[in-house]
């Protein structure tokens, strides 16, 4: 049994943690484009009903002192946001009609 990445209250999501606890937007974007809609739908269906609870959980900590398991949960929240674009809005991994366009996020706050 590998060590838990997420707070115990969110243990049911451990199966997604290895894939979706990603610290940067570039990693999350790349994972989204490399995923099938079925994979993303599964993650979305499992996590979306609890995302507000997850935000509240992370919100108990100051931004500059988040314990590692909560930080992983925050990265999972960011990934849900990323996946929601595909699942809720475009129904496909890439934005509709984005063709060959690439926009790279080169700076972002941490975490």
């Amino acid at each position, binding site marked *: 049994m590998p060590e838990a990445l997420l707070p115990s209250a969110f243990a049911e999501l451990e199966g997604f943690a290895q894939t979706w606890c990603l610290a940067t937007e570039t990693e999350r974007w790349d994972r989204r484009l490399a995923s099938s809609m079925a994979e993303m739908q599964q993650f979305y269906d499992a996590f979306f009903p609890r995302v507000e609870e997850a935000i509240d959980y*992370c919100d108990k900590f100051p931004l500059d002192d988040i314990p590692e398991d909560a930080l992983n949960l925050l990265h999972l929240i960011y990934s849900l946001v990323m996946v*929601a674009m595909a699942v809720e809005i475009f129904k496909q991994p890439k934005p509709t009609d984005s063709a060959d366009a690439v926009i790279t996020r080169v700076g972002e706050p941490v975490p």
Partner: protein
Amino acid sequence: MGHWPKPAEGSWTEHYPELGTGPISFRDSTSAEFYELEREAIFKRAWLNVGRVEELPRVGSYFTKEIEAARTSVVIVKGKVGVVRAFYNVCRHRGNKLVWNDFPNQETRGNCRQFTCKYHGWRYDLEGALTFVQQESEFFDVDTSEYGLRPVHCDVWNGFIFINLDREPRQSLREFLGPMITGLDDYPFDKLTERYDFVAHNNSNWKIFADAFQEYYHVPSLHPQQVPSEVRDPNGGFECAHFQIDGPHRLVSTAGTRRWLMAPEYMYPIERATRSGLVGPWRTPDIGEMPAGLNPGDIEPWGISNFQIFPNTEILVYGGWYLLYRYWPTSHNTHRFEAYTAFHPARTVRERVEHEVAAVVLKEFALQDAGMLGGTQAALETGIVDEFPLSDQEILVRHLHKVVVDWVQAYQHEHDMAGV
């Protein structure tokens, strides 16, 4: 349509009669020859925004900026008493590029006490003075005071750093910006320092992308997904509340409904869960009273104001945050696009999540705009069509292309006069 009143002339476009109402040409965006003229007439004459003062936090902080349109590299540095200066990024000894890190063609930033050339170790202080020449006695009457870094005109407006590559700028920065842009003198940009930065290399002329962000006529067609499909109106248009032109600069304001007052079906589930989305965080911290210049059309309820600062900078102010775009031409049919969103520094994890959502959504829809570019550029370059009708909603597109041609013609005129 016709929800918002138009000027007495009957349209925004006719309110500015110099714009005309006929079809326009986009040859200014397809011609390599025209681009060569633009480089001289615009990018070596206009004030260009290269960054914010927050990017130079300490004495000795610097960044380099590649200005391909002017075939030059500039280093911008904060000097000893906090003055921001700009210099051509060229060592005076043998012309080596002075400041670079891994590769000379890549921009870099950092903090230093002085600049040391990699080639022969000449050193310059933060004010650009040559302070050290290796084996100075080997040289022949070199007066080091004559060999400081070549300065670039540099000035700061409300925290935005501008440079001007002209030998002697025709206008001061404030004169250039004019009353409409300096109407934002008191906008607290310095409070909005949490940034998400983006870069894209796009396959179109720089103006073609700028055009996509200075009219909203395209929104219902290109971005139908901005509202959930259940509430989409296939015949719905979009009307902006206010347009304004001041010299080479442009402004558009739209009305906006406060998100938390909208029926829930008008938002996606992730927007409701995070209380953020297409127009940013639903609620933002109080950053003080807004200057009247932010909403010069007195639009109520005000949504956004989009300031297009000639030639290549856009500042789009939302309620409590803003985004900035810059379009840097790299050839007549390519450009580098820089963008960032800027928020009040998050005080809580929840606020940080709100910012992340806004930054993610922005990229989604900007990718749709960018996805059009290759096709548009290729189609324009066929030259099959060269008369394009523009609506009143596209007045700012009309204005940008007119100003660009005006500046090029003024440059050509001066050149012809000088040549006689």
